[in-house]
């Protein structure tokens, strides 16, 4: 890894230089909620944000996405391949994208996702956990790859890790904005990371998690929470690794139609419904439990399908807490 320093006074120049690469999206505060929005000036962003409601997946797997257009009876790609910059992505969300990569880039690669991924410049930023975060338990609190540049906050600027060839190019083209990293910067970087590691309030016990859950299939805890759950599907929408989609065709006029994908949620009754009205997950209990199984599936090459971002807790209207459910299910086994 290459480490360089971006001083506070060069920050704005650096930000402005990115606009030449494409539209820049960064975390913006709207009411009490943060979201990734197009930004023109650095000060529009809230770089000390905790989490956006929708994760950066919305740029790759879009909430509504017109994938094909029907012209003269034939499908044409409805793809937009402009480069863009995602500024200020947290480490857990970078891990979230890597999990989506596993799914969407595996053969046959999803062409929409692939093009957007190739066109995205990802600039990570360090953060401090709040009461919902448990990324440290899952090892997703630090990103080793999956970004072009990663900015770590220092008292007088940013320690920048260069994570890709494109990151190197960006740093190269704006060499004048960066300094060498000093011993003091490194000490500050270490101190920040230590302070951060100590700030986590929530911890997930992932010891044998997958097996433990499997054994607890009939635990009464599932039912207890399924009864509280509103089946609104919020937890799916906001999760950086949830990516189920529905497809539907729509006519624009008598000659033109589009095929659209949109987010689907395994909490919806239609999710497992097949012909003749047979449903493979007929009850809310089935659907509630399914989400936890899907999130806690452990892929040896990619880890769990949860990165501990805390969104599902923060945005659950029934105040159901992911870690608490898992802990209780574990408790019910003994």
């Amino acid at each position, binding site marked *: 890894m290459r480490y360089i320093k971006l001083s506070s006074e060069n920050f704005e120049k650096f930000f402005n230089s990115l606009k030449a690469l494409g539209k820049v999206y960064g975390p913006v505060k709207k009411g009490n909620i943060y979201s990734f929005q197009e930004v023109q000036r650095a000060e529009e962003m809230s770089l000390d944000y905790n989490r956006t409601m929708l994760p950066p997946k919305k740029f790759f797997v879009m909430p509504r996405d017109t*994938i*094909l257009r*029907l012209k003269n*009876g*034939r*499908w044409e*790609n409805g*793809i937009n*391949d402009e480069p863009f910059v995602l500024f200020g992505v947290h480490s857990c969300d970078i891990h979230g994208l890597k999990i989506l990569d596993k*799914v*969407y880039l*595996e053969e*046959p690669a*999803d*062409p929409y996702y692939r*093009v957007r991924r190739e066109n995205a410049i990802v600039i990570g930023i360090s953060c401090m956990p709040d009461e919902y975060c448990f990324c440290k338990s899952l090892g997703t609190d630090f990103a080793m790859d999956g970004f072009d540049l990663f900015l770590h906050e220092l008292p007088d600027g940013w320690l920048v890790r260069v994570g890709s060839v494109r990151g190197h190019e960006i740093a190269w083209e704006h060499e004048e904005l960066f300094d060498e990293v000093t011993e003091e910067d490194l000490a500050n970087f270490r101190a920040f990371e230590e302070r951060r590691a100590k700030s986590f309030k929530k911890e997930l016990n992932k010891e044998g*998690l*997958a*097996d433990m*859950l*499997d054994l607890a*299939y009939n635990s009464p805890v599932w039912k207890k929470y399924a009864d509280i759950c509103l089946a609104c599907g919020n937890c799916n929408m906001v999760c950086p690794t949830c*990516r*189920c*989609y*529905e*497809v*539907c*065709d729509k*006519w624009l006029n008598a000659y033109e*139609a589009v*095929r659209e*994908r949109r987010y*689907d949620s*395994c909490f919806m009754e239609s*999710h*497992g*419904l*097949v*012909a*003749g009205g*047979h449903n*493979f997950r007929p009850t809310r209990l089935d659907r509630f439990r399914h989400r*936890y*199984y*899907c999130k*806690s*599936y*452990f892929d040896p090459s990619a880890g769990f399908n949860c990165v501990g971002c805390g969104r599902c807790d923060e945005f659950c209207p029934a105040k159901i807490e992911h870690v608490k459910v898992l802990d209780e299910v574990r408790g019910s086994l003994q």
Partner: protein
Amino acid sequence: MTENPYISYDARILEVKDLTPREKLFTLRFIDPDVGEKFEFKPGQFVIVDIRGFGEFPISLCSSPTRRGYLQLCIRKVGRMTKFIHRMKEGEIVGIRGPYGNGFPMERMEGSNLILVAGGLGMAPLRSVLWYAIDSGKYEHIWLLYGTKAYEDILFRDEIIHLLKHGEAMNCSVKLAYEVESPSCIYLEKGFSDRVCRGVVTDLFRGEEFDVNNTYALICGPPVMYKFVIRELLDRKLSPGRIYMTLERRMRCGVGKCGHCIVGTSTSIKYVCKDGPVFTYWDALSTRGLI
């Protein structure tokens, strides 16, 4: 962007045949001969039928890859899309993408006996296996145990009756169970008293002996059927690894992206569209919710 796996290829409907009041057989051919040439499939695989501007749905290939130049789909009218295609006529065009899924391991089973257990519409994918096995001549003996509701519901009735009469010459024994009595069934039962009976598909196992070390069972039918059929097979000491079944789930993409067909728990998650739709009973034992 050169390849888009979600774009279907044009195929012309060559023939539409009523099989039953609910099911029609569509015979299709790709318009572009290159596409047709490259389209190779295995019994048990499926395609996604694309009615452009209206939607897509998964359907098993029910013709055999041994019979090239066309594809056949047996489609039951159950809802919006299937109603739509039931109104389509010879000469019209639909989109086809695929083939998808793993299919049955036909090569691994060469030299063995095959027991095909079909319930209702489950006959469709198994017909592909049946004709593949008969045409290739590479299998010891083929049993087809077919359970159907009534005489009118027998899919591919002509073929089934033909095989009841002449199957032995092709190493194939057909047995049929029906639930609703009718004059036609009684007539069939009289003609083939040892092979046609009133009852359910598991009744057809009665009196059958097979060499468990040299036999594979292939099952397809409604969800309730699997448990009972598997019990019959396990009672006869057939190894779970020799029991193959093809499953259905809601499917959108067919290629492991849309998430609809995921089954299982934290220790084993399977995509029915790409890890299946054919699974062994071992898979069912290790993946909860598969059957």
